[in-house]
């Protein structure tokens, strides 16, 4: 049966029988276990206090193991067996309490006046993190719509509905204001709807428009309409849906994204590339340990033009010494420069050889027609333009492209936002507050693994850029490969199903009640379900994710709070 909040009798799910803050609470279930699911949001009424928590486990129990071991229904008539099982076999819920709130006595009760006089206003009555446990036998019930609203907020442009509770189908919003204040992550194994979740959130962020977003769209998924691989339905593109707000930037001159022309293209000036950009590619390019010394010499020799100059050198070019008649390195050869600069010739030649892959990148040009990087930053910085940028990598889908470009851009962004923030802080009256920026990184582990994190700008952003108005939105299927210091910094985490134990641990790193949450994460539906948790979420909760389709945009535009439609009901009944 479908839950109907209007006329459902207020039947408790069970009562508290034990537990601790550390190990979560045990609740004896008094309804069939099918009526409660892992991840449910439950409310515990304990005197003047109300506790909010999440079901993290269901356990079968028995007062004596023999009642469980032996199939007494074969020995006893059905009605007697039913009575026996009703009392000796039971299900315990594990409830991870997250919040508590003083609600005071019943307004109709005589104690209420006294209590009210001590609590003249509702300040101090807000939900707060749990610091104690409810009493024995406190009744536990499923969360009602008002509980959800109380904890997660009423749906609004700011409170963006990301999904619905499993049982009652109540909308669960994410506070976007809070969401962008810290870096966050969206995780899930391949095919679990991770990119749909990302699209949903991006749509919400763009619509709400309090922060700029920059999406590094490695696989050209976000800008234009796409066809879902499984349902064959049209997946709306963000550019399509927000033509005025979204600018699509293609990488490289003449780039074409899914057959469409981007708003403009990004070419990088050779002078934009710094030695550290190369160092970061050490693994990708299989560079030797002599590389830093060589790069340092190049920088000494040529300064910002090092890349162009190095590119121009001919590797292995020899000429005849007119005096001795011996073969010597040509004047424009790498060896010649190396000899002059006092670096190892072999090292320099090796580096030159390996950088050939970069020298050939068409989007790196000596003199780009315009500074498209600056253009991007301008779009993102400008509050009045309300623009968001999707950088599509077009045909340049290699890791090398992705690493180089994202890092380079992010470095520039970091410099820019630091500068603006410092200016704002020193002279708030002269300088505007910087526009918050969310940088969306797909396949984040490529940039944020333990090895790279130190070298790229991302780790720093994740760690400290919060105060400079820049945060990351990490999208990844292998969170375990991301540097754990970065993972633990993530405020809001939205995770779809994960199969790997290490990935699950990574998503839960730095959170309270990890052990209790682990099972929930492992047992999510492989599709369309996600666990919301972390600093940005009042309490961990499993949601059926909202569908990212045309109707979603209608709801978004209509600004009406999303509600269950007839289609939803039918889908639940028969789906």
């Amino acid at each position, binding site marked *: 049966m479908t839950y109907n909040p209007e006329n459902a009798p207020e039947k408790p799910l069970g009562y508290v029988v034990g537990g601790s803050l550390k190990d979560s609470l045990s609740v004896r279930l008094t309804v069939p276990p099918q009526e409660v699911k892992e991840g449910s949001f439950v409310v515990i009424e304990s005197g003047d206090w109300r506790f909010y928590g999440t079901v993290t486990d269901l356990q079968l129990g028995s007062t004596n193991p*023999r009642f469980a071991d032996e199939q007494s229904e074969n020995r*006893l008539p059905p009605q007697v067996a039913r009575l026996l099982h009703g*009392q000796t076999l039971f299900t315990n819920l594990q409830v991870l309490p997250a919040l508590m709130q003083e609600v005071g006595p019943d307004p109709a009760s005589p104690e209420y006046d006294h209590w009210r006089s001590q609590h003249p206003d509702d300040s101090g009555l807000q939900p707060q993190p749990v610091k104690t446990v409810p009493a024995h036998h406190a009744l536990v019930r499923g969360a009602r719509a008002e509980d959800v609203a109380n904890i997660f907020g009423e749906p609004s442009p700011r409170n963006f509905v990301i999904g619905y509770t499993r049982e009652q189908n109540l909308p669960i919003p994410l506070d976007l204001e809070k969401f962008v204040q810290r870096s966050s992550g969206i995780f899930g194994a391949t095919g679990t709807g991770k990119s749909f979740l990302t699209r949903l959130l991006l749509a919400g962020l763009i619509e709400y428009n309090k922060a700029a977003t920059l999406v590094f769209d490695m696989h050209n998924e976000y800008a234009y309409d796409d066809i879902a691989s499984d349902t064959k339905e049209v997946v709306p593109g963000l550019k399509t849906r927000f033509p005025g707000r979204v600018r699509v930037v293609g990488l490289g001159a003449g780039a074409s994204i899914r057959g469409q022309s981007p708003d403009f293209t990004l070419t990088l000036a050779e002078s934009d590339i710094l030695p550290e950009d190369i160092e970061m590619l050490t693994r990708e390019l299989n560079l030797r340990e002599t590389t830093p010394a060589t790069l340092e010499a190049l920088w000494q020799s040529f300064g910002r033009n090092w890349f162009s100059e190095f590119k121009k050198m001919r590797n292995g070019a020899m000429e005849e010494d007119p005096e001795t008649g011996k073969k010597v390195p040509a004047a424009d050869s790498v060896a010649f420069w190396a000899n002059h600069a006092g670096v190892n010739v072999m090292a320099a030649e090796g580096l030159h050889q390996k950088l050939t892959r970069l020298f050939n990148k068409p989007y790196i040009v000596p003199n780009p027609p315009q500074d498209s990087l600056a253009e991007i930053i301008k779009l993102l910085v400008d509050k009045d333009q309300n623009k968001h940028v999707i950088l599509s990598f077009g045909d340049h889908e290699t890791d090398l492209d992705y690493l180089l470009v994202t890092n380079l851009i992010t470095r520039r962004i970091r410099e820019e936002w630091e500068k603006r923030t410092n200016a704002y802080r020193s002279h708030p009256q002269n300088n505007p507050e910087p526009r918050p920026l969310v940088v969306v990184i797909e396949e984040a582990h490529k940039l944020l693994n333990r090895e790279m994190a130190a070298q790229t700008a991302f780790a720093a952003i994740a760690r400290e850029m919060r105060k400079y108005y820049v945060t990351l939105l990490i999208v990844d299927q292998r969170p375990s490969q991301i540097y754990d210091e970065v993972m633990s910094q993530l405020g809001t985490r939205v995770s779809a199903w994960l199969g790997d134990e290490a990935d699950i641990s990574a998503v839960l790193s730095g959170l309270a009640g990890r052990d209790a949450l682990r099972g929930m994460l492992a047992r999510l539906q492989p599709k369309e379900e996600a666990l919301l948790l972390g600093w940005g979420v009042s309490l961990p909760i499993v949601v059926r994710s909202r569908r990212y389709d045309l109707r979603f945009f209608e709801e978004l535009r209509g600004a009406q709070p999303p509600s269950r439609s007839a289609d939803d009901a039918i889908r639940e009944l028969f789906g």
Partner: protein
Amino acid sequence: MTASLQIGRLLRSTTSDCVIGCRASELNVPVFGGMVRIPLADGTQIYGLIHNIQIEDDGLIRQLITSDNVSEDVLLDNRNNRNVPVEIGVIFVGYAQNGRISHLLPPRPPLSLDEIFTCMPPEVIAFTGSGRFGYLRHILRAEDLPQAELLAAHIQQAGQMHHAHGSPGWVEAVTRELVTLLRDDYDRLMSVLSAIGDVNLS
């Protein structure tokens, strides 16, 4: 059975049980598990359950056994006339004083030769339906009794009366209470439930 029947007189008693003497020819009235009442002089009614019916022998019976065949008339004589000692064991389950039913043990036991009567359905229903089955503990405490059989017989009889008088849920309620009381004692509970499973209320 339309009126309360006298089934015998008290032989001996303690605060928790008693033994009733009864004539063999009257033995068709008391039944195992049946509820009986013993009125005291002060108006208190003690309630009990028959947990044992014992047919004693005597010298003559032992002697008659040695005969090749016991003739019909001798058989009838012994059944109907002779004071073959029949002892009925009754465990007290509560009492009523000034119309108030209590599932505690009676304040004092009945005296020798006090009369014992069978309980009528309204009495059984009133007693077993009052309170929360507190009287079961008297049965469960007496470990030397055939508890499972006694409970099953009691539930069968009382259950039929409740059923006929509009409270069909009584059997379920008493079974639930037994499960609660005995759930830490698997063996005892299963034997009680097996016996209850054999109860036929139709």
